[in-house]
């Protein structure tokens, strides 16, 4: 059972007959046509072997066992010959089958790997607006479950479907060749079986969908209840939670019982058809034998082939639904691949290699959808100076960072670095010159060293210097494996303060021209606070800094402060000037600590 991270995909039936979609799917397998052709050749061996065996038994009976006109020793010798052939056929069948499974898995996985890789790179190339509009759970599902669905179709269905089809055709041909009249009567069963199977596959699909949805509900409810069990207990919600849970499990039981009934009707129905065919062969075929139109051996062969005929039919409905869901997945994947970024990145690099790090915003306007976030914003930061941005949540502080990083393009106005409009610069090149430290820090499941370096290469002494500067040395020293300690999933869990320090080390390793810092609002303990403070100081040294500041110490360090409100600059100046001014800034600062204001007056 797979379920995404909180995201549950509505099951959708794919259009099995969509030729355009098929062409596109097939285009991925074209480079592997040799492997696929081999798999098809192998499937002929497998089918040949399985169809030859009943024939061999018949030959054995007719030619040697009942043939009293031959000498006994010759008959036994003949049986030995036949047995030798028989061994050859079963070994060949087994080996071919094994090779085919491996070959198909290999090819299918390779194709899926390429598709997944293509999709992943494509997604990473899309702009941030795309990620805002698509919940990450949905995108994760594309890369994992949808690709997996397609893989199931590639390996288990396409070729087995092909195998089964060839097999059914082969059996039909043999039956018609042996006795066309009996074969014709039996073939009247075909539309019945097909109709039954298709009907069933539709019902079964709906049933499974209902089961999956219900199970996902149970799981998410349980996940939520267990992870917040203390709150449930403190608020004495146990009984209520239990009642809700039993309602969910009861509904799950109901969907399961429906599915059981469905299978209990349709699975035996296929066997009923099979028995009906046997009865037909006995009655009509027996009649033919009485009229001497048919031999007893042929009747036995008919019975044997009939059994082989019904085997693939049982699985057909299941395979059909796999194809359906794979087509739906393919459609979703291709849709995503066809999404292009809202603005195309500039490939050109600027002709000015040594930049000083001067930043200016000139009459910048920006809005998300219809909501105006920045209006007519202008400021200037001289090289090496630090600008602090202060303001309440939603005043547009973070948007400044997003625009400078070129996650979005401004609606109006220009942003310049050293006088160059950043929309004319190569985005990759630009971002390499900006160092960003945000409240959230991404951790890759690897060692601390790898987490600092990422794709950079620097010398060991340089690295140690950076770790010192970022105040990480104390943390690293405490760990027995030091820099090689694994962090993230399955490793050591870093605290939020330690993650912040790691982020500073990362920036120092990249030695950017301009540092952009979005300070964390949530408090850490005071020891870590002091470390973070030092890390900020050493990272800001000799760089242009743009800081969304919450800490007083950071604000005081700034050369210039702008106070934002509703997307505009309402005050600016240095700390002393702004305090003297007695405006919003002063009010904000006084809130940090002031005895004269009323506090909690509980008594």
């Amino acid at each position, binding site marked *: 059972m797979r379920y995404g991270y*909180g995201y549950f995909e509505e099951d959708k039936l794919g259009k099995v007959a969509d030729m355009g979609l098929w062409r596109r799917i097939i285009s991925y397998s074209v480079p592997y046509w040799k492997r696929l052709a081999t798999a098809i050749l192998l499937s002929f061996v497998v089918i040949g072997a399985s169809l030859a065996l009943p024939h061999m*038994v018949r030959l054995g*009976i007719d030619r040697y*066992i009942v043939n009293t006109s031959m000498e006994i020793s010759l008959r036994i010798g003949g049986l030995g010959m036949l*047995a030798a052939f028989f061994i050859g056929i079963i070994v060949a069948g087994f080996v071919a*089958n094994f090779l085919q499974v491996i070959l198909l898995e290999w090819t299918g996985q390779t194709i899926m790997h390429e598709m997944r890789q293509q999709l992943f790179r494509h997604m990473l190339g899309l702009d941030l607006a795309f990620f805002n509009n698509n919940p990450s759970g949905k995108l*994760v599902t594309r890369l994992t479950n949808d690709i997996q669905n397609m893989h199931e179709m590639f390996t288990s269905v396409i070729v087995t479907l092909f195998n089964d089809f060839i097999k059914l055709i082969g059996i039909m041909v043999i039956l018609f060749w042996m006795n066309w009249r009996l074969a014709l009567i039996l073939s009247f069963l075909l539309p019945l079986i097909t109709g039954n199977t298709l009907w069933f596959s539709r019902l079964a699909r709906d049933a499974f969908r209902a089961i999956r949805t219900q199970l996902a509900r149970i799981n998410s409810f349980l996940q939520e209840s267990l992870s917040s069990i203390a709150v449930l207990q403190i608020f004495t919600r146990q009984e209520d939670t239990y009642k809700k849970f039993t309602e969910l499990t009861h509904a799950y039981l109901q969907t399961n019982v429906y599915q059981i009934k469905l299978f*209990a009707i349709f699975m035996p129905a296929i066997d009923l058809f099979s028995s009906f065919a046997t009865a037909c062969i006995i009655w009509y075929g027996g009649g033919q034998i009485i009229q001497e139109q048919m031999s007893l051996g042929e009747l036995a062969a008919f019975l044997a082939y009939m059994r082989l005929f019904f085997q693939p039919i049982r699985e057909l409905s299941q395979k059909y639904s796999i194809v359906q869901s794979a087509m739906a997945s393919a459609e979703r994947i291709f849709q995503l691949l066809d999404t292009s970024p809202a603005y195309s990145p500039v490939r050109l690099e600027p002709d000015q290699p040594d930049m000083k790090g001067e930043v200016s915003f000139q009459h910048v306007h920006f809005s998300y959808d219809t909501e105006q976030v920045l209006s007519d914003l202008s400021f200037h930061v001289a090289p090496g100076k630090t600008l602090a941005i202060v303001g309440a949540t939603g005043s547009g502080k973070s948007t400044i960072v997003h625009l400078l990083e070129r996650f979005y393009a401004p609606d109006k106005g220009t942003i310049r670095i050293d006088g160059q409009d950043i929309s004319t610069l190569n985005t990759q090149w630009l971002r390499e010159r900006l160092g960003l430290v945000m409240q959230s820090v991404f951790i890759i499941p690897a060692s601390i060293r790898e987490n600092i370096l990422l794709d950079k290469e620097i010398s060991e002494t340089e690295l140690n210097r950076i770790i010192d500067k970022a105040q990480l040395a104390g943390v690293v020293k405490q760990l027995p494996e030091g820099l090689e300690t694994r962090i993230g999933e399955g490793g050591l869990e870093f605290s939020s303060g330690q993650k912040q320090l790691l982020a500073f080390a990362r920036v120092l390793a990249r030695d950017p021209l301009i540092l952009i810092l979005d300070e964390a609002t949530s408090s850490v303990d005071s020891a870590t606070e002091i470390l973070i403070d030092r890390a900020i100081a050493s990272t800001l040294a000799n760089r242009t800094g743009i800081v969304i500041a919450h800490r007083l110490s950071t604000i005081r360090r700034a050369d210039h402060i702008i106070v934002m409100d509703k997307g505009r600059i309402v005050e600016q100046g240095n700390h002393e000037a702004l305090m003297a001014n007695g405006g919003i800034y002063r009010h904000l600062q006084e809130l940090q600590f002031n005895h004269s204001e009323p*506090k909690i007056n509980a008594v």
Partner: protein
Amino acid sequence: MSVNSTLKSRQVFSGKNLSLLAPVFRRYRLRLILGFTALLGVDSFQLLTPRFIKRAVDALETGKASNALLLQCAGYILLLALGIACCRFLWRYLIIGFSRLLERDLRDRLVAHLLTLDSLFFQRHTTGELMALSSNDLAAVQLAAGMGLIASVDAMVMTLAALGFMAYINPTLTVIAVAPMPILAFSARFLSARLHRRFKRVQEQFASMTEFVRSTLSSVHLLKAYTQEQFQAEQFDRMGKDYIRHNLRLSVIQGLLFPFSGFIGNCSLLLVLFFGGRLTVQGTITVGDFVAFVSYLFMLTWPMTAIGWVTNLFQRGATSLSRIKHILEQEPELHDAVSSESFTVNSGTIRLNRLSFTYAGQADPALEDVNVVFKKGLVGVIGKTGSGKTTLCHILTRLYPVDEGVFFLDERDVNTLSLATVRATIAYVPQETTIFSETIQANIALGKMDASMEEIERVAKAASIHDEILAFGDGYQSRVGEKGVKLSGGQRQRIALARALLLDRPIVIIDDGLSAVDTETEHAILQQISSYLQGKTCIVISHRIAPLAEADEILVMDKGKIVARGDHQTLLAGNTFYATIYAHQTDSRARKG
């Protein structure tokens, strides 16, 4: 054949595990008896069918056949087929249905039990671990109790019957024919254990790829800022290649296991063709016997494959069952007092007398010799991470057990009061905010489901969240979660605060509950809620000194002990630690030297 001994593997039928299932089996015994009767019906009808075919074939061979006889045989075959279909419907419905009932019963029981366990238990067992119990382990038990039970009974009956018929025809030939079968049973068992392991490995790799993609996409802006797109894609490529390798390892087993039963079946057929053919040629057995022998042989292939599969299924089911049982046997260390006496709190005074608390497996106590009285009024608690502040909260909210004579509420030892009684006197705002995927209204009304809309709006206003709630599309009816509104850390904390304010209880505990709210908002909230806190016992834990400055008393905690106490001015003058934090939070230059 060692069918019985193979199936009755020690684990499965050990009384220890079955004791858990016995009541369920008893409860549904009628369903089970009927189901297995139907299963036996299918098996016997199936064994009868070849006899009618044989009767027709024999009649045709000897030339005694008539159209009437053929029609009669065909009719019987159809009649048997109908009987088989009905019985099949019955066993599927009854026995697989039983396994689903068993699953439901166990899952409900598991959750009912989990809800009674204390926080110490949930520290030892992660949510993920308990989730796996409910999803994977229960599924394994369900599979063993449904298909496992059916397949084993069916395989046993079919094996015994087919072997009986074969031995009746010719015992020597039977021995020869079944000679390769044990290989199948053993190899199937051997392979399917590996199959399971490798399959698990594939799933783990799939899970870590999913986690990688999720974490990449959720911090995509940072990756772009660090120009890590190429680097991430390379990492993902490596993981994908590992995934291919694990899948290929799995398919080697799959490619062997499933065709292998056919292969062994064909080997038996080969032996029968050669040796049986020789016997026929020599006249020891008749042609009809030979044909019948071959058809019984075909009947054996499925049970042989099933044995390996079923044994594995039972083993996995038994392991899972013992895991579930282990959890069901856990008793909470925190006992609920069975007093029916009604208790109404008067003064709301909490007295802690020499409270110490040590987590299992830890050398140092989390709390040591804490003596304090919380009366009406505000007490602030301040201290480093790990100084024992949150442990103290968990004890006060009765999540952890305390000894007798330690924790008094209105001078009553809490151990003599039921958990619900004690908790009903406290409104608690936890450090880790929990928001449920419900409407915002339901989230605020968590402790008081019948609260009126006016009450809810009033506390939301007090917690400075009302306007933001109205800004969501459906106001208070907006759902929280992936498909609904996403709340920021500050919004979550304010909703949790509103939730506690709604309760209007004599004791209020706020465990660093406004850490993600900016200073301005925090200030506004503190002003607004002060009227709510009038006349209540109020304990506020914070990292920031500002909101605590007006407290009657501030406790400074370090390493589980109260190291200093007093009001703001006293501490500022007398405690270095307190003074340092204060200096840092007000003016950094005072600290920098």
